[in-house]
């Protein structure tokens, strides 16, 4: 067995079923190992750009909870993975990226297709490995999966020099477990911390839960529901936390932050206890930190100690897995009712719901409401980045975790289509919709080919306003409507583009065409369908708390 075969055998031992990537010179031994009969349980998906391979692996991982795997050759193949790796570190996605590398004897000589991918990715990986002997490989792959999937999940890079891939192992021994003395994961909440937290919860008059991606990655939604029902506290989620708490629950306040609902942001302003679960007080959530939750004590439950006290001091810090902490907190608190607080929050929800101007023209928010209705809120939704992303987060009702896949931390345009395909590979029986924009979609539209060839049909709702809409919105609001580098114009013809790939294309211009187009899209089950929705570029995302400001400066949808 050579090094490359040892990599593939190790992937099998880790239960890997799909890998996404593109081959090349230094990756040839790895790809040769993937066509051996012993590798038949692993589907090797040839994509059209390595960055898309990384995002596909991310979509696969986020929708399934399993580690996503992508592969690329050395040099440009490896550097093309960089944005996907950065995306996964910021959104804490378990990812193992395998790269080919030039042979060890020429490393450092600027050999053909050489790039120092270990050095390039150092600030954006959880860890990286480069074996110097084929016998190190089984241990390294085991360690890579262990590191990627435990604690705060994240990306691990394994860089495979070509000569190491080709060299023979003495013996293949796959370790049962790996011991890393510099890597200790605390999972269990300390009982002293739980007691202190329970004391704050019992005393609180206006508790609020602020829930993020950490809750999704620990599958702690049932524990969250139990706690919420016991202490009658409203819940707001971050962008990454959408779906961690069901929108159908009366105490759900939807998203908080820059484009969060008015009622969520008002609840943050007025709460006296903020229970922060698997969140990192990101600037898009807090705005001006000094004025964020100004009346609240904070309980911060977080697996990554570096996030605790980083942006906001926590009166009680619980460094633990959210699931364990929630279970224990649930048992430690007294049942409570907060009728006045509940009444207040419900009143805000009624007074200032998400709304938009209905003037008979096609509105993006309407498209999402129709999509929610026709899919009964059950589809897996992926998005790209921009206005459409915020509308999708606001208007689509998410009722289960891993249902909403979006690029939150890095804000990567182009994430959506590959992520949708990754989700479809992991969940072939589920309906997967991509909500994208005309700007973002053009960053990875080549993956339409992957969807056709591997028969992974997804539905694409393209929000086409012929602009980089969110940038235009900022230029409208803060740069005196001086449009600079945002006009995409009406190119290409997306219907024809879809058809060129063998997919179905539909163009929609009027509200009454939305429903029939979606019905038609849902009838097609053997091909990807793209619906090109054209609407007014003047439409803005509301509410909005401008960058660095607070809830007091929140701008609501203007009344006409």
């Amino acid at each position, binding site marked *: 067995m050579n090094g490359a075969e040892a990599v593939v055998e190790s992937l099998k031992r880790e239960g890997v079923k799909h890998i996404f990537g593109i081959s090349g010179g230094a990756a040839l031994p790895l790809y040769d190992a993937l066509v051996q009969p012993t590798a038949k349980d692993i589907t090797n998906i040839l994509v059209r750009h390595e960055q898309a391979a990384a995002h596909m692996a991310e979509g696969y991982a986020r929708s399934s909870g399993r580690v996503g795997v992508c592969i690329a050759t050395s040099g440009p193949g490896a550097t093309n993975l960089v944005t996907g790796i950065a995306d996964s570190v910021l959104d804490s996605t378990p990812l193992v990226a395998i790269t080919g590398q030039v042979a060890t004897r020429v490393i450092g000589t600027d050999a053909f297709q050489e790039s120092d991918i270990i050095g390039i990715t150092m600030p954006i990986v959880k860890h990286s490995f480069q074996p110097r002997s084929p016998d190190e490989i089984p241990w390294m792959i085991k360690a890579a999966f262990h590191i990627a999937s435990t604690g705060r999940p994240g990306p691990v890079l394994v860089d495979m020099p070509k000569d190491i891939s080709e060299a023979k192992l003495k013996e293949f021994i796959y370790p049962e477990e790996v011991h*890393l003395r510099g890597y200790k994961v605390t999972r269990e909440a300390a009982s002293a911390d739980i007691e202190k937290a329970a004391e704050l919860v019992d005393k609180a008059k206006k508790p609020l839960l602020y829930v993020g991606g950490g809750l999704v990655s620990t599958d702690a939604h049932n524990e969250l529901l139990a706690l919420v029902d016991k202490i009658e506290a409203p819940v707001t989620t971050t962008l990454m936390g959408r779906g961690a708490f069901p929108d159908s629950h009366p105490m759900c306040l939807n998203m908080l932050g820059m484009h969060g609902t008015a009622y969520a942001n008002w609840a943050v302003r007025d709460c006296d206890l903020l229970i922060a679960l698997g969140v990192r007080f990101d600037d898009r959530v807090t705005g001006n*930190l000094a004025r964020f939750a100004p009346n609240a004590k*904070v309980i911060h439950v977080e697996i990554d100690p*570096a996030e605790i006290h980083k942006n906001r*001091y926590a009166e009680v810090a619980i460094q633990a897995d959210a699931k364990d902490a929630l279970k224990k907190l649930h048992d430690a608190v007294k049942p409570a009712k907060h009728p006045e607080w509940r009444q207040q929050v419900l009143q805000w929800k009624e007074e200032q719901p998400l709304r938009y101007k209905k003037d008979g023209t096609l509105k993006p928010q309407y498209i999402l409401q129709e999509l929610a209705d026709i899919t009964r809120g059950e589809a897996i939704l992926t998005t790209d980045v921009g206005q459409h992303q915020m509308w999708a987060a606001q208007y689509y009702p998410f009722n289960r975790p891993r249902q909403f896949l979006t690029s939150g931390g890095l804000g990567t345009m182009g994430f959506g289509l590959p992520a949708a395909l990754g989700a479809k590979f992991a969940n072939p029986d589920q309906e997967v919709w991509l909500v994208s924009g005309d700007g973002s979609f053009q960053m990875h539209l080549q993956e339409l080919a992957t969807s056709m060839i591997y028969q992974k049909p997804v539905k694409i709702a393209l929000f086409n306003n012929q602009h980089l809409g969110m940038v235009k919105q900022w230029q409208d609001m803060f740069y005196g409507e001086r449009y600079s580098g945002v006009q995409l114009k009406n190119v290409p013809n997306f219907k024809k583009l879809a058809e060129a790939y063998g997919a179905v294309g539909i163009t929609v211009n009027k509200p009454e065409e939305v429903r029939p187009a979606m019905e038609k899209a849902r009838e097609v089950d053997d091909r990807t369908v793209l619906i090109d929705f054209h609407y007014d570029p003047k439409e803005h995302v509301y509410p909005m708390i401008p960058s660095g400001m607070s809830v007091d400066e929140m701008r609501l949808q203007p009344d006409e």
Partner: protein
Amino acid sequence: MSNNPHSVKNGNGSLRKHTISVLVENKPGVLARVSSLFARRGFNIASLAVSSTEDSEISRMTIVTQGDEGHLEQVIKQLNKLIDVITILDHTEDDLISREVALVKVHATVDNRSEIMQLATVFRGEVVSLSPREETMILEVTGEEDKIEAFLESLSKFKVIEMVRTGKIALVRGKRMT
């Protein structure tokens, strides 16, 4: 920030120097991971010394960083996230034996040579090289940072040609480990 009761601890914003010992796996690339982290997070390195330890698999980095308490807390927590970092000890409050070494090349003529040598003696320094024809002398001094600073200060009246100085190394007095 300092007026905000919710802000992270900032120890009155005082920019103290903190000495930390970082025990790391003795593997290629570890120094790059540590220095890359300092660069990316905007942490400052006032001094850095890397050495072997009594265990051949472990290296020690003695790092002096300057910043407030919140800064130090982040430095330590972020370093802890590196897989190759085994333990970190903050010696801010410890009773430390610390040393730096400086080598200083000075222009030394027949007239001022003895004065320079006297000065070195005061600081328990040594003359490690003397080239009368080229009128240079290299002095070595070992000690805590303050002593090195004072030595350099008193040498400033002479013509210093070049100077090199190590990072700080330190051990905690007594049984407590560094």
